[in-house]
């Protein structure tokens, strides 16, 4: 909630500031800048580069601020770290009361820390001082009675913390934390957590970068990073190619022949709405969990998309073009080669982009279920060991690669079908 509010605030603030700055230095150029109607004119709305940059930067800032990153200048309050103490008041069996102090050392988990040394003084009376060490974000039990004179005798009880009365199942806020009493009368101290996320929930950005370098150098569980990603990509490419190899001709046949259309229409229309992920269990039963199964799954994921886009490419041909070609003396085969196929290419490329995206998503999911190597396998293995940094690194890599695939496809498209949308 808080994060969302901060994000919205940054959004609004950045917008206001940008408008003020851009408005003053109004050196807008180009045709779009001359348009007076922009609201509702989709072509006049281009992504504001400044907004994109600020958006990404602020995500990292918020991420950094809430994880205590070294990269960001401001942080939300972190967990308490350092020395603190509280005093407790105990009553013994003889109804005498005495105070004792608990000295606490709070340190980041993983940092070796020692219990604080107790001062020489303050050991008079039956309640003796105690020492405690706690990890940040954790809590620790302390049985203060253990070293107190008469602490083991029935009737001994702790009655107050820092002068505030306490009873079983109650708690008292002290400096830098909370002291609570269990139902059996032991004390438990939890240092204040602050607003930052524990690394096990969300590591700082630099931890993930460090982990990325580490993993790309040493691999993870004896598998190199490039090998993990390479296997995923390999499956996607093979599955996609097989799907296209079958799907495109099938789509053409469906667009050109009524028997094919009638035969495959029910199958395609039935298979189309089934998400490939829903096929995983069946594919595992049929083909097992190894390569054959995953590639069959990706093949199925790509197949219907490519079939449908090839079919749409054929039916999208302007009939005038076909008529013109016939009038110019082209045979059916020539019409297919010189008119129908080139005319359907833009549609097929659009389909290919979608199919690649779906395949990439599907392969990661399939690897989550079962795989020896692969991007999905890496993150699911890491999650079992609560290596959140590897999980997040994997997710970011998967996103970047998916995005990269789409950009490559778009580049291929603009080189191979420059006439797209210009018919």
């Amino acid at each position, binding site marked *: 909630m808080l994060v969302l509010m901060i994000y919205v605030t940054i959004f609004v603030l950045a917008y206001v500031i940008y408008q003020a700055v851009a408005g003053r230095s109004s050196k807008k150029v180009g045709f779009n800048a001359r348009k007076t109607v922009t609201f509702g004119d989709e072509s006049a709305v281009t992504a504001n580069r400044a907004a994109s940059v600020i958006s990404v930067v602020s995500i990292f800032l918020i991420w950094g601020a809430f994880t205590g990153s070294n990269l960001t200048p401001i942080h939300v309050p972190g967990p308490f770290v350092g020395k603190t103490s509280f005093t407790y008041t105990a009553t013994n069996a003889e109804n005498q009361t005495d105070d004792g102090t608990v000295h606490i050392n709070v340190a980041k988990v993983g940092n070796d820390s020692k219990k604080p040394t107790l001062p020489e003084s303050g050991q008079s009376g039956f309640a003796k001082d105690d020492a405690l060490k706690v990890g940040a974000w954790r809590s620790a039990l302390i049985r203060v009675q253990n070293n107190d004179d008469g602490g083991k005798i029935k009737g001994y009880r702790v009655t107050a913390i820092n002068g505030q009365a306490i009873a079983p199942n109650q708690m008292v806020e002290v400096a830098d934390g909370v002291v609570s009493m269990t139902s059996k009368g032991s004390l438990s101290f939890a240092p204040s957590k602050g607003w930052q996320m524990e690394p096990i929930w969300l590591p700082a950005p630099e931890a993930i970068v460090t982990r990325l370098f580490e993993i790309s150098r040493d691999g993870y569980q004896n598998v190199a990073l490039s090998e993990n990603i390479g296997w995923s990509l390999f499956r996607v490419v093979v599955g996609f190619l097989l799907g296209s190899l079958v799907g495109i001709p099938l789509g053409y046949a469906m667009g050109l022949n009524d028997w094919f259309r009638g035969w495959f229409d029910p199958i395609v229309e039935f298979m189309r709405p089934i998400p490939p992920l829903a096929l995983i269990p069946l594919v595992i039963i049929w083909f097992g969990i190894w390569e054959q199964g995953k590639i069959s799954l990706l093949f199925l994921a790509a197949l219907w998309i490519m079939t449908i886009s090839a079919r749409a490419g054929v039916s999208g041909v*302007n009939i*005038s*073009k076909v*008529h*013109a*070609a*016939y*009038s*110019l*003396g*082209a*045979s059916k085969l*020539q019409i297919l080669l*010189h*008119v129908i196929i*080139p*005319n359907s*290419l833009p549609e097929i490329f659009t389909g290919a982009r979608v199919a690649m995206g779906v395949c990439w998503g599907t392969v990661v999911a399939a690897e989550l279920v079962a795989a020896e190597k692969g991007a999905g396998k890496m993150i699911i293995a890491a999650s079992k060991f609560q290596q959140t940094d590897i999980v997040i690194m994997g997710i970011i890599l998967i996103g970047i690669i998916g995005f990269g695939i789409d950009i490559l496809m778009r580049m291929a498209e603009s080189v191979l*079908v*420059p*006439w797209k949308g*210009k*018919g």
Partner: protein
Amino acid sequence: MADEKQSSLLIDNISMTFNLPDGSSVEALKDVSLGLATGELLSVLGPSGCGKTTLLNIIAGFLAPTGGQIILNDHQVQGPAPERGMVFQRGALFEWMSVRKNVGFGPAMKGVPEKQIRTRVDELLEIVGLHDFGDKAVYELSGGMQQRVALARCLANDPDVILMDEPLGALDALTREKMQGLVLKLWKETGKTIILITHSVEEALLLGERLLVMAPRPGRIHKEYHLPFAEMGVDADLREVKKHGDYGSKREEILSMIWEMEEEIMGRKE
């Protein structure tokens, strides 16, 4: 009829009835007959929906008529063939090919050697005034230029008859006038039989040795004119031709004829 004997293109009693899915039927054409001699230039006018496009598609061989036949050079038309070239209003160029490839499409399909195609295409591009644009992509050309490419592509096949369905309909007035001059020039130079459908009375007058006015429901020939303006326009400025006294009176006559038909259609609808 003696007229039909010497005709190279004979439209013989053509009828076309479309059966609609709701069970009713439309008589798009009823008993349309017409003979055209080689080298004649015919323009066809008529209110929207009177069957002009249907007639042209039947001549081109894209539609089989429900009655009658089309005969070209003593052969019955069975389907599309390169002897009958077609120029569409728009959208019929192959945008994945260069201008040159578009124009050379017909000969290439026939397997004419590359070199021959090239000379022929260069010739045609010169004629339509696009010699510098051979290697451009068609989508880089303006609408008027694209129609020139379509004309050149049609001519490259050396058809006997050229069929045009509102070929200049999508162009602006100025480009359109230039293109009208080009059509007349090509007609005279190539001696082709041309049938041109248009919505513009002026264009029909200028580009028709013969002018056919069609009437709707059922689609039929309403009136035929023989006009001198096309012949005049070959050598003279088209604007000069329009100043001719006869031109104005014919224009008024045909305009009011079509207006009447349109009004009749509206009246029947109510």
